[in-house]
């Protein structure tokens, strides 16, 4: 009997051990306290930048519904035109919001756990600075789009169903402190000496300048903001040799495929041709699709034109947006001197349908007046490899169009399916036609630093410096065929509209436009002027994004989560 009892006791205590959980395939939050976990937490924070640069959700809230781009036939018709279907349940809005908070918490995990991690102090400091830099970027996005937002300063490691909105002034202060801290501990020297994608002091300073500039235009403005913005941007420019930054001589080289690590680039969000680490659906892994699909976004419906088929070279037509007539016809003015138009837009396509002559057009009988020499009625207008589509950028008569070998599309025939192609993100090296891009996305580049400096200088009344910086950019814009002298501006030319126009010419499509317009208070005015479909719907409330309904719904305890005014 005693023996039995003993046996039972033995079994029981042995069994109790079985109740201790020891997971072997998952990592728990304690992992952040290890060296490896600390590093991998930072890697995840970096990975989150793919959810901004390269991601359609971020594209949608920055590129479309502006003076630059309007709805393409396959584009989001709610946000593009500010229709009443764009509201707090619009999925894109929630996606951006959710991404921000998930990865702010990742940064918080890295920063808060740092004291517990046994590693070399200097390296640790740098890594904390990198996390702060990324956190600042996320909060900067939040505060610009939504105004007052929840400010999580520390690692959230407990479930909560309540949340409050902190005043945007507080959020800006936090961002500025993060960037100041980061600029101290990030690598101070040449950008090319750090791993591609790693943040440097130059990146932190560039963003800091932009934050000051943006706060200066917001309800949380401080008197010193523009001055601070100017000083910060200027320091980046003045220390350009320390950072190894230059304006590339040729604008075309900046967005050249494969040249994403050029000396004008301050910071990128990385992608790779290694498909185990880059799409489709491998870029992010769990619940986060982080593919770079900017290569698809602007592609027009070229495949519907005679002689054309869909190809990897010309891209997959997502037709999400199409340039406004203001963008293609007006803002560049002289497209000969300003080479940036032709370097930003593709206006010529060569016939690529190998199945000659199935889709190729034939000359009618009789030949149209003015038909080129060699045209024969009933014969093909052009063949494989010849120019199939040409957008001359100026008007042509119907007779000229009829007499043209390639399909002529003058501006009056641009449609929501077909117009000049904004080609900065074109990718011909991806594995397959439908695949996402393998190119890193340039988040910040040196030319913008000049434009920030110019805008800040202008805002502080220092028009002279503003002119100087803008002329530097415009001089480069003339290279190599334009007349640089004719591109120069004077103090009389400069005003906030000119600065916005210059930003378009330089930064068209670089996922900043909507924010530029809000910062300068010009969103509603310019949308009404240049984007006719959005013009009839846009309202004052649209300068902020609605708080996602999912957020409001899930805050079930404490004060209800407030919506933005008018939404």
């Amino acid at each position, binding site marked *: 009997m005693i023996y039995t009892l003993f046996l039972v006791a033995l079994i029981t205590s042995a069994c109790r051990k079985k109740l201790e959980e020891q997971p072997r395939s998952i990592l728990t939050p304690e992992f952040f306290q290890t060296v490896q976990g600390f590093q991998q937490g930072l890697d995840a924070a970096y990975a989150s930048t793919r959810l901004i640069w390269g991601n359609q959700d971020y594209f949608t809230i920055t590129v479309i519904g502006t003076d630059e781009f309007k709805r393409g036939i396959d584009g989001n018709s709610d946000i593009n035109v500010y229709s009443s*279907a764009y509201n707090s349940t619009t999925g894109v809005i929630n996606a951006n919001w959710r991404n921000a908070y998930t990865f702010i918490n990742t940064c918080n995990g890295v920063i808060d756990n740092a004291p517990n991690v046994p590693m070399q102090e200097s390296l640790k400091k740098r890594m904390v600075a990198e996390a702060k830099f990324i956190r600042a970027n996320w909060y900067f996005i939040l505060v610009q789009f939504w105004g007052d937002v929840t400010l999580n300063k520390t690692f959230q490691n407990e479930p909560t169903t309540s949340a409050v909105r902190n005043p945007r002034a507080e959020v800006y202060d936090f961002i500025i402190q993060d960037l100041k801290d980061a600029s101290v501990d990030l690598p101070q020297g040449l950008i090319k000496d750090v791993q591609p994608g790693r943040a440097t002091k130059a990146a932190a300073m560039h963003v800091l300048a932009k934050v000051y500039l943006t706060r200066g235009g917001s309800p949380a403005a401080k008197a010193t903001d523009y001055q601070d913005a100017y000083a910060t941007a200027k320091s980046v420019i003045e220390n350009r040799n320390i950072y190894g930054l230059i304006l590339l001589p040729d604008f075309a080289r900046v967005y050249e495929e494969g040249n994403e690590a050029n000396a004008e680039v301050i910071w990128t969000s990385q992608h790779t041709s290694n498909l185990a680490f880059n799409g489709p659906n491998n870029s992010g892994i769990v619940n986060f699709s982080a593919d770079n699909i900017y290569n698809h976004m602007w592609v027009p419906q070229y495949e519907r034109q005679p002689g054309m088929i869909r190809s990897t070279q010309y891209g997959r037509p997502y037709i999400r947006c199409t340039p406004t007539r203001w963008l293609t016809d007006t803002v560049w003015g002289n497209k000969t001197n300003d080479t940036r138009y032709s370097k930003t837009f593709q206006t010529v396509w060569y016939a690529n349908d190998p199945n000659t002559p199935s889709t190729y057009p034939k000359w009618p009988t009789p030949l149209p007046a003015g038909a080129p020499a060699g045209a024969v009625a009933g014969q093909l207008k052009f063949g494989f490899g010849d120019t199939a589509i040409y957008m001359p950028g100026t008007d042509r008569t119907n007779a000229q169009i009829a007499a043209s070998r390639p399909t002529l599309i003058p501006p009056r025939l641009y449609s929501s399916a077909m117009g000049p192609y904004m080609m900065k993100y074109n990718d011909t090296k991806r594995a397959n036609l439908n695949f996402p891009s393998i190119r890193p996305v340039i988040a910040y580049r040196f030319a913008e630093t000049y434009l920030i400096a110019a805008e800040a200088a202008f805002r502080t009344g220092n028009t002279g410096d503003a002119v100087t910086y803008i002329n530097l950019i415009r001089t480069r814009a003339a290279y190599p065929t334009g007349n640089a002298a004719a591109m120069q501006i004077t103090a009389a030319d400069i005003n906030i509209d000119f600065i916005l126009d210059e930003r378009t010419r330089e930064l068209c499509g670089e996922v900043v436009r909507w924010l530029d317009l809000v910062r300068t208070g010009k969103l509603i005015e310019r949308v009404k002027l240049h984007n006719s479909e959005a013009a009839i719907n846009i309202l004052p409330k649209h300068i902020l994004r609605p708080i996602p309904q999912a957020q409001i719904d899930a805050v*079930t305890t404490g004060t209800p989560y407030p919506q933005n005014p008018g939404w």
Partner: protein
Amino acid sequence: MRQVMYSCFAKGKPRLLLCFVSMILFLNNLHAQSPVLVKGIITHQNGDPIIGVSVVVKATGKGTTTLADGSFEIEAPANGTLVFTHTGFVGQELKLTGTNQSGLAIRLIEAKNSLDEVVVVGYGTRKKSDVTGAISSVTEQAIKEIPAANLTQALQGQAAGIDIQKNGGNSKPGATPTILIRGSRSISATNEPLFVVDGIPFNGSINDLNQDDVASVEILKDASATAIYGSRGANGVILITTKRGKTGRPLVTFSSYAGFVKIQDKFPVMNTQEFSEFKKWALYNGRYTGNNRTYSSPNDSALILQNFSPEELQSMKTGRSTDWQDLIYKNGFITNNQIGYSGGTELTQFALSAGYFKETGIYPGQEFERFSLKASVDQQFGKRIKVGVSLLNTYTITEGEGANPMGQALRASPLVSPYNADGTILNDFVPGSASQVWNPLANFVPGAVVQARKRSGTFTTLYADVSIVKGLKYRFNSGIELRNDVYGEFYASKTTNNLGGLSTAQNRTNFRTNYTLENILTYDKTIDTKHKINFTGLFSLQEQSTQGNEFRNNTIASDDLQYYNPTYGANLVGEGSEEKWDIISYMGRLNYSFNDKYLLTLTVRTDASSRLAPGNQDNLFPSAAVAWNIHRESFFDVKAFTNLRLRGSYGKVGNTAISAYQTLGALSAIVYNYGDATTTGVFLSNVPNPDLSWEYTSTLNIGLDFGLFKNRITGSAEVYQQKTDNLLLPQTLPATSGVPNAIVTNVGKTENKGIEIQISSVNFQGKTRNSFSWATDLNFSINRGKITQLAGGVISDPANSRFVGHPIGVFYDFQKIGIWQATAADTALAILQGQTVNGVGTVIGNIKRADLSGPNGKPDNRLDATYDRKILGSSQPDWEGGMTNRFSFRGFDLAVFIFARWGHTIRSTLHGGGFANTFQGTYNNIKTPYWTPTNGENDYPKPNANNTNTPNNSLLGFFEGSFVKIRTISLGYNLPTSFLKKLGLRSARIYTTAEDPFILFSPFVNKYGGIDPEASGSSSSPSNATLNLDTPANWSMIFGLNISF
């Protein structure tokens, strides 16, 4: 007599008269004699012989029992009466006449709920009359009548209080339905009941059981019955007893059926004429140049020229229409074959059986196959020890489980041909579909798509019974389950999956072990013949561990390699998983009965679960039950009642049905690269929940069992109330919490109340094979579940669709009130509400939603998700019921099973929120009316090429889900005994069964073009009944044969 008969049949017509005369003479002759030797065979209504039936000559007490082949011989007065009785069957009497003495073919009808029946309860068996808890039994016959692919399907509608629905409407071969016992409570990891096979918790898929091996199924519903399974019993327990050998002459059984499977109906999509008209409207409504329509009318020649290809125009002219569904459907094939051999001596009993099941789907490439082998041996050693072992081995192959060509077949334009000019399959995007829809026929090219799941498993149970002293028994019971699951997937480049891109392959393997060790002590004692005591004590340990891995790659060197060797591919990525949990339990149960009238059961179980947070791991679950056999009271003298029993129970059970490691929090992986340096980052995706605790359900159950008119009518009624506290549910947190995944937490309380009624009646009792019989089984249940409290005093939690006072998982959305019309009144209202009425974003022609409320509690002329959504319905039915009518006559039997579910809401992704009813016009659409500026259509919106899906499309998907369907009709014929004898058979039966042949009533089907409203959510959220747009519901017809010898 036999000789006379034989001579009659053997000879020709001219001698018929003579025969007849001699027969009469013979019969007269018989009358004169007394007593006589009566011979006969007793069979079950399904034709199987019944062993051990008591045959007694009335008024003499002289009797015998039937042998293994159902035969008996007895001497009786020529005009005497024989009484046949057997446990579990309705008793029968037969008055002998001269004509029936030597070839009696008696048929007994199963009596449901007979009190003498022995039922399996947890850790033992009890006579039905001694049972105190709420238990529904499903007999072998009822299971056999529905030759389904798996046991769950066969149980559907057979017992009150079990709700079995197709998971997401999934009708694929090998799909397993969702089971809910008494409504839904916790829906975290699983809400499924615990399956216990031969006393051991069974963790395999229900597909791993061959229903031919099942002898009986008991469903434990109340706390008293389930409490002995402690934490694993909270969602109900289904006890399955498999067939074992019996003492007697070896019995060989063989059964086989085969038949076809067909779709119930095609999804209603548009043809060329309808779709071209629809597409024109979509383009007219959706194409704007600036803020003006691009086209002057739907028939604008520019519209037609710019948007229709020459091929499409040709089709419009000739009316040629491709019905893509016709091209992908085929008839499925279904077959099941089983051979069994069983028998035994007093000391050793054995049973062996082997089965093979196969079903092919209604598209090429879908297939489910099961091979099963079962063996059991029970051996007596000396007087005290009995040892038994049973092995259940299965191997299943599922092909094409992910196949769903609907996305292509329903969207492909009817205007274009699936073939090239030379007749080969156009292996490319279907023209006229914006390069999104790949020809669905591409997936049927041999070798293009492979989705193969191979599962093998063994489930081995071993017991040893030791009689220690009289009344005291020790039982060691153990079970080991090993499961392997290997999945491979390959898609060639030119398939709907890869759309001409890189070929892709995937491998997944999963290995799981479970073991259960139980030490059970039972003590039986009767004191003074009146006091019966039965005590059961248990110590058990259960452990499950799983491990799995998965790897994917692409650019496979040759399609022939499929998924087998990633060496010849690129971009390999992999993942792995591991999980282990343990439960340690002690249980004690005391049954006491006084004079067989008053019965008491007390149970206490403690469980310790590794899955909960330290400090919250242990818990105690007590329960008590009483029963009163009223019919045994002397004062109760109502002749009609054969029995009448009242039962009551109350108890508490717990639930830890969550995945392991939920209390710890978890990180997720995300990849990145710094230039060429690739890395895998980690971020917090699940937050630790150190307070995670047991969910408890307390159940009060009152039941009444009755038997009337010698058990010709039997039944039971149950009333229950369940209160669940600390409900374990996934909770979506606000994004600002920084936690992206829903976490499992104790969210609140729910209550389920219900009534269950089960009645069986023998309406016409035919005494012999040739007479007419009619029996009816009826079950009916009502369950009302609601959330009574949410954590933190929250009343409404729209992010998780949880609202106090309503069932779990209601449909919460805006209310559709029609379509915005092109009238001045509607335009004015739209403007007032801030709706866009001009340009491309105009709401005119779109779905119109009700302005229900506002910040001040009144409609505010604004549509806002915070104030204007409401609960549109829930998937909880008002009631559910099943009725089986069985008729037999002259060896034929007919069973018709009707199943109904009433008063619930379903969501159909065919209509709303899916890809088939987008109104974009770029793809084919389901055939609905649609709004045009002049037709005033108020149910469906305008086609609009500008919207990928019409705004608020989810509102088109809610429907009343009520239905009444004929689940099965089965017609069988049992060969007559005389004929069997010649063939040397004990029994033989041929039959045909139609499964799901008719839907008698369903507004969803009759009014809205749905196919089959039967749907549930997944097992992780069963209460969100959604009909996914997948394999259409099918019906089948089989022809079968069962023989034994």
